[in-house]
Every structure is written in structure tokens, then in C-alpha cells.
């Protein structure tokens, strides 16, 4: 039996305001407005080259590393303007962690992979506790607790990706960005990560870029569709509840993309 939802003010972990991105003279994303609710999974989908990863990397300022990159508009992290003059990308990345397409553990022990962030961050609590807690949160503890001194590279692909998630969690972020985190994994390892995301969203806010539309359907609460126009400039076509996007989208381009008729 369902009960009527109580009206609760939705808090947003991230707000995009007129975000426009350029590589050199080329505009690649235009005017994205979108608010990412706390403790939800928000998926960004769209065809290849639609600017999904570029948009995601704007959030933790990974694009700053690309000399020709420029961004207009604002991204708010709570009340904090991520692009305010003087804001420190390194500090931002502690708050807004990232997991990449291919698992990229350091060539260090499992323990040291997870302890890496807290150590350089000057963490002065019990390192063992934070390693265990992070590995538990990443649903990896039971599989590795007896082999913490072994290299992270000895793990399977799916385990390595969960190790990278544990590594991201160890610096206690509030937002986790995932850039196609399952594209290098088999279906079972993929389901394990998807299941983990449902646990993680209770404590963190998750934004995932995926080229796998079905995965967006399975894991996300909200879905954003980015599509390039005829000048290859990406627009936010639609942003809504995932169940609505997949059953009754408003924009006909969403309908066509979701049903596999374009893209």
C-alpha cells in the first residue's frame, strides 16, 4: 500500500546554471541548467560526443587540466561557487570524488590504495578504521580483508573498480562522480557496482555518466539527456524523473533516443 508522499523540500547537492563549455573556439556544451538532488543517483546519458563526460568533469574541475578548455556559467556545490576566484580544485576534489571508466588502482597494496587520500590529506585518526570503513562501504571488505597487503592490481576488474570507489570514499566526499564506471566490467561485476550505488546514495550524492541507457534506467532516480545539435553543440534536451523519462518523456528527441531511433 502506498502512502501519499509528504512534501519535503528537496535539497540539491549541485546546481548547474547556464553552463557552457568550449574547447578553444569550439563551443561543445551550451546553457545547461540542472539541479542534482542530494542522496539520489542522477544519470547523464546521450550519444557519443554529446559532452556527457565533459559536463561531469566540469563539476570537479578536471577540465582545468586541459589548456584550451573554458567554461561559462556557474556550478553551485551547496552554497559554494565551484568556479569562484581563488577556489582550490584540490579541495573541491576531496569533496567531490571521481571514479573513472577503467579501474585505475595505484600499483600499491589494497590498504595503501585506500589510505592514500587520507594520508596526503593529513588525516590523523586511525587509518585502519577508515580503510575498513571505506572498503565496507564499497562492498569489498569481505573479499579482501585477509589480503590487504597484496597489490591492488591482483584483484579482478570488478574488485578493482570497487577498490577505486573505496579510495574515493576514504577522503569522505559528499558527491561521487562516476564516468562510465562499468564500461570495462562484465555483466555480473556491473550489477554488483549498480547494487552498490543503491547503498551509497543513502550517504552520498551520485552523478553517473553512462553510454548504457539501460543502466541509467536501472540505477538512477533522475536522468539527464544530452544531445548534440547540427553544429555538434550539446544541449540538455530533457531532465526528469528516470521512470518518467523511460515511460513518457516530454521531448520527442528523448522518446526517439530512449527507443533507439536516433543516436
Amino acid at each position, binding site marked *: 500500500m*502506498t502512502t501519499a508522499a509528504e512534501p519535503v523540500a528537496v535539497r540539491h547537492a549541485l546546481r548547474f546554471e547556464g553552463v557552457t563549455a568550449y574547447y578553444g573556439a569550439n563551443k561543445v556544451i551550451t546553457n545547461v541548467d540542472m539541479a542534482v538532488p542530494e542522496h539520489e543517483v542522477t544519470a547523464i546519458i546521450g550519444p557519443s560526443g554529446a559532452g556527457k563526460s565533459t559536463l561531469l568533469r566540469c563539476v570537479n574541475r578536471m577540465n582545468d587540466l586541459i589548456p584550451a578548455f573554458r567554461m561559462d556559467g556557474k556550478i553551485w556545490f551547496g552554497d559554494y561557487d565551484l568556479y569562484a576566484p581563488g577556489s582550490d580544485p584540490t579541495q573541491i576534489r576531496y569533496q567531490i570524488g571521481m571514479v573513472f571508466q577503467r579501474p585505475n588502482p595505484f600499483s600499491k597494496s589494497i590498504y595503501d590504495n585506500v589510505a592514500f587520500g587520507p594520508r596526503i590529506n593529513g588525516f590523523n585518526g586511525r587509518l585502519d578504521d577508515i580503510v575498513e570503513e571505506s572498503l565496507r562501504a564499497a562492498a569489498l571488505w569481505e573479499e579482501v580483508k585477509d589480503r590487504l597487503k597484496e597489490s591492488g592490481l591482483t584483484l579482478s576488474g570488478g574488485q578493482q573498480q570497487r577498490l577505486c570507489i573505496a579510495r574515493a570514499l576514504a577522503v569522505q566526499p559528499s558527491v561521487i562522480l562516476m564516468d562510465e564506471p562499468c564500461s570495462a566490467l562484465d555483466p555480473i561485476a556491473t*550489477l554488483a557496482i549498480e*547494487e552498490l550505488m*543503491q547503498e551509497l546514495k543513502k550517504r552520498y550524492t551520485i552523478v553517473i555518466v553512462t553510454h548504457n541507457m539501460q543502466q541509467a*534506467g*536501472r540505477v538512477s532516480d533522475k536522468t539527464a539527456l544530452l544531445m548534440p545539435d547540427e553544429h555538434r553543440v550539446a544541449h540538455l534536451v530533457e531532465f526528469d524523473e528516470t*521512470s518518467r523519462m*523511460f*515511460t513518457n518523456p516530454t521531448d520527442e528527441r528523448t522518446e526517439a533516443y530512449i527507443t533507439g531511433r536516433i543516436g
Partner: protein
Amino acid sequence: MLRSEFDRNLDLLQSDLSEMGRMVEETTRQALHALQERDPDMARQVIQNDDAIDNLQDELESKCVGLIATQQPAARDLRTLMSIVHVGVELERMGDYAEGIAKICLRMYQEPLLKPLIDIPRMADLALNMLNDSLQAFAERDEWQARQVCDNDDAVDDLYDQIYHELLVYMLQDPRTIQRATYLLWVAHDLERIADRATNIAERCIWLVSGHTASNRARNSDRSLR
């Protein structure tokens, strides 16, 4: 465990179905009670309550469509979702039959009953037992119990035939009873349909468990037009 969130959603849908079944049973009993006691207020209440059942079915269906669209269910998961939609439709129609009985009550409560109601309440008990058993079989994926429900439909059909012939005799003997007898015949027909819909739920359970449609489908055809 993989897909625990999806499994949790399936469990929630199952409880929605049970709740709908409980409402259908209650509303059918109220409709019968209104008819027997010639209580128009209760009949109006039944008619009003049907909206709640309809709303529940709408919600159930959109939840199922949402899960099918987003979760790519396959094999038994897909059969489960398709079955839940199907059972929801059956329950919603049963609610309509209860409402139909309440509407008949509103047409005839000012006149005395043609005869004390004996077989019609018996029919209602049988039909509602079938409803409960079919939903229990469905919830527990119990194919054996589902087949029992299909078999029990014969008893309801036999009672319906009996009531039909009995009322026919009333009408032949005294044409002034035609209107009241016809109303009672409609009530019996509504109950016969409720039992048929319970059989459909049981057959859906058999399909869900085995992947095969129930072979006794033909036998379960609508006998109300004989």
C-alpha cells in the same frame, strides 16, 4: 545480493495486490450486506469506495510499466511484472462487479426482496474464497493451490445455473416478479464473474510459476449466456 532493490520493488507490488484484494473482498461483502439489509447508505458507500480500488490499480500499473521500462526484467521477473499488471486488472474489474451489486441495491431497496437470499450469499462466499485462495496462491507461487481454485469455479457455475432456473420459475409463475427477479439475476451474474476473474488470477499464477498457460482455459469460459 544482486538486484535487491528490484526485488524489494516486486515485494511492494505484491503487497499492493494483497491490499487491493482485501479491499475488493470487503467491498463485495458490503454490497451483499447492503442488498440483504436493503441499506442504500451502505450501497452508496460501496460505489464511492470503488474509486479507491481504481486508483490503486492505476498506481500499480504505472509502477509496473516504470519497472519494465527501467529495469529490463527477463524470464520470471518479466512474467511476474506482467502477471501483477494482469491481476491488478482482474481485481479492478471485481471491484466494478461489487459496485454493480450496490447499484442494483439502490434500484430495489424500496421493495421487499423477492425471496430470502440463501444461494446468492453462498455464491458470494464461494467466489470470495476463490479470490482469497487465488491471491494466496499467487503470492506464494503455489501452482497446486491455483489449480484447486480453477476446479472450484464449477461449484459457482452450478449455483449460478440453479439460481437462474429458480428465478425463471418465479418469472413464469408471476410476471409481476420479472423486474425484481431480473435484478437478482444480475447480482448472481456479477458474483459468477467475480469467481471467473478469480480463476483468471489462478491461471495467471500457473503461468507465472510454470511459464505455460493453464490448459483448462476453455472450460472456464463465461457460462452466463447459457
